[in-house]
């Protein structure tokens, strides 16, 4: 039997905006019912977040607006830096990095070559000043690819893979529909063959049929590429479809964690119970 180790091992991950005080964590969270420290006014965006992500797994991160979902992803994607905790990432070659402590050069390398990120807002994930192909090319160029033909062919392959018509390769993303912009974001994110993919509310605000197509695409990518993913959503339907396991956040804390099916069938936390009830 293969002894697997997690791709990502997160423990005690905490991000406090503001100067912080000794009581920030104690006075916020689920039990306190808030994420602003009453003593010093700092925002405890997330605290004490712990979970493992296994190879090829899709982990759901669920919670209402402001619960800290995007904060978790930003910390792991190294767009923001944690106040405390650790997040050990195991690279394909076996090297391990604590994402909380890596230096800026290493952070850049990991973002450019090992991670992929897809945002709800395509303006965050795409460069609207360059063509669709240019958006994909940028990621390949970041990874050191210098052959124009290879870049071109890889970009076309990724457009095929994400069902963006090849003929659109030289068009600006501003001319694309919302669904196609998201698929282009996914193509761009996948360009360097990442080992870890973050998807933050990628279907929010899209028509149901467009959503369904993107969710199918994400499942196909998981099956084909085996890339581990963290899928952030406030939508029960999305975690039900995509995520084998889910963590539920509230006021910046994990209030429930486990197999998605179990959480949906037998929620333990009153908040999750209420969520599941209202979705029925």
């Amino acid at each position: 039997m293969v002894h697997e180790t997690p791709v990502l091992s997160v423990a005690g991950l905490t991000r406090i905006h503001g100067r912080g005080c000794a009581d920030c964590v104690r006075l916020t969270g689920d039990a306190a019912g808030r994420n602003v420290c009453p003593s010093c006014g700092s925002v405890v965006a997330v605290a004490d977040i712990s979970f493992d992500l296994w190879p090829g797994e899709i982990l759901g991160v669920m919670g209402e607006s402001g619960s800290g979902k995007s904060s978790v992803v930003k910390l792991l994607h190294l767009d923001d830096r944690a106040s405390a905790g650790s997040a050990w990432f195991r690279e394909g070659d076996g090297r391990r990095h604590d994402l909380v402590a890596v230096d800026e050069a290493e952070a850049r390398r990991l973002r450019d070559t090992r991670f992929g990120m897809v945002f709800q807002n395509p303006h965050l994930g795409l460069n609207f000043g360059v063509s669709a192909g240019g958006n994909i090319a940028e990621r390949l160029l970041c990874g050191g690819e210098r052959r124009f033909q290879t870049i071109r062919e890889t970009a076309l392959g990724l457009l095929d893979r994400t069902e963006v018509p090849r003929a659109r390769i030289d068009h600006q993303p501003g001319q694309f529909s919302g669904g196609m912009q998201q698929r282009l974001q996914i193509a761009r994110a996948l360009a360097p063959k990442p080992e870890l993919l973050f998807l933050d509310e990628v279907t929010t605000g899209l028509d149901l049929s467009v959503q369904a197509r993107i969710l199918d695409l994400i499942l196909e990518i998981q099956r084909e590429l085996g890339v581990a993913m963290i899928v952030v959503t406030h939508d029960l339907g999305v975690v039900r479809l995509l995520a084998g396991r889910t963590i539920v956040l509230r006021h910046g804390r994990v209030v429930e964690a486990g197999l998605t099916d179990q959480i949906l069938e037998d929620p333990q936390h009153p908040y999750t119970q209420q969520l599941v009830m209202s979705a029925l």
Partner: protein
Amino acid sequence: MSPASSLQRPASSCDRFGFLDDFAVREMRRGMLKALAIPGYQVPYASREMPIARGFGTGGMQLTLALAVPQDRLKVIDQGADDSVNAVNLRRFITASCPGLATTTRTAEATLIQTRHRVPERQLAPGQMMIYQVPYPDPLQIVEPSEAKRRRCHAHGDYARLWVKLYEDVVRFREVSISNRYPARVAGRYIIDPSPIPRWDLPKLHCSPVAHLFGAGREKKLYAVPPFTEVVPLAFDDIPFAVEGFRATDCSRHACATCGATDTFLDEIPQVGAPPRWLCNDQDRCAERQGYPDGA
């Protein structure tokens, strides 16, 4: 006299030579030493007010004034011409503030060559130094408006968006369309804007025996390509960098109508009712090839 000895000019010899006060001279020289020590890195410096409007070569001129010693022989060109209004004005100002400084139009005889838009065609030799007037020192300016962000990009060697610009160019025009200010990597590290010289001149910077000093007065930046340093134009592996071809429709190479050269950068001169004439842009090179008929 070598560039090194020029940089070692004792401060006491500066009295009333070179317009700049000793403090400004030392500041420029410190900046230049740093620029030479970190090839391609843009060194900020305190650009002085000059009796010429910024943007008319004040950066290059300050470098010349800080470097020139009475033993130097100065050549000033604008495009390939020594006699254009700009070149004449700059030369006049420099010689007026550096009494005794000799000037020349002959590349072979010059020790300091201040230039805008061209590198002389003649192979440069140790003992000479190139000084460039630079309007825009930062190659990232076309892709990133914020200077703070550009500095970070340089620090991290993050030139991906410049490469994307090249990609988009090749997609749109089937080739890289940048005709001058072609970005190049220096000593395998920093990417520079080589000032508005044509592509034709870029290979002359590669492993050149002389120091190339760049001054941007308005932007208050200095940078340098030291002698014998790699200068590699940004290009895809499968689409090599190419200089201007000056090819006729039958693919033959245009020649200079005056000196017959087929290995120089040519200007196309439209003619009324006749095909255009092609002439060397570098006037000194053209005259030299003819054996200096006017005795210039």
